[in-house]
């Protein structure tokens, strides 16, 4: 089956991101495909490459980046939610005259239309709430 997962929780403060990651891994292990990961609301914080958790702690953003790379997943971060929260790429940094950016490899900023398109193209849509 084709899944789309919507992730609404930040990586460290609640469990949504961790549960979504475990679900995504289980779905892929089972031979299903993931049409899109859509990071929205506080979920956009998962797309930062600047997190540096202690070495004995799970690095959730790094795990997402790895999963996305390994399975060539489409990982979209809602651009409106991300700009409000300070998750930006080089293009937006230039547009808003910010001197740096923080988006991690594998994530792409795009609009809510990507969520709508994904729901139309997927067999199952799951939300992981904060």
């Amino acid at each position, binding site marked *: 089956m084709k899944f789309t997962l919507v992730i609404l929780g930040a990586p460290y403060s609640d469990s949504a991101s961790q549960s979504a990651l475990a679900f995504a891994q*289980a779905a892929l292990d089972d031979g299903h495909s993931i049409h899109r990961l859509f990071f929205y609301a506080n979920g956009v914080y998962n797309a930062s490459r600047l997190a540096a958790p202690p070495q004995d702690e799970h690095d959730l953003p790094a795990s997402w980046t790895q999963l996305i790379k390994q399975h060539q997943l489409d990982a979209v971060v809602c651009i409106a939610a991300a700009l409000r929260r300070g998750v930006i790429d080089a293009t937006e940094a230039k547009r808003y005259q910010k001197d740096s950016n923080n988006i991690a490899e594998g994530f792409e900023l795009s609009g809510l239309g990507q969520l709508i398109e994904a729901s139309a193209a997927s067999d199952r849509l799951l939300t992981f709430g904060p």
Partner: protein
Amino acid sequence: MSTLHTVNKSPFADQTLQSCLTLCANGDSILLIEDGTYGALTAAPTTALLNSVIARGITVYALGDDLAARGLHSQLNNITTINYQTFVRLSCEHKTIQSWY
């Protein structure tokens, strides 16, 4: 076609599980995840409602990883413990998934 309901909030702190139990339909399934697994306890304020839902033929599941993290091994309601693979399977078997949080 039926719905899989996931619930991630403790019924001791939050009304979310109560709302889910009130609105789930025959043929649906309920999966307790994260702090929702406290809803598996017989001491939960939602236990009577949960048992009436089970009596209607709705199956209630709980994620084993989340039960284990919290040390919830005893005094559980009539609930099926599952892993993420079964969570994926349940998502396939129901048409829609409603996340209660």
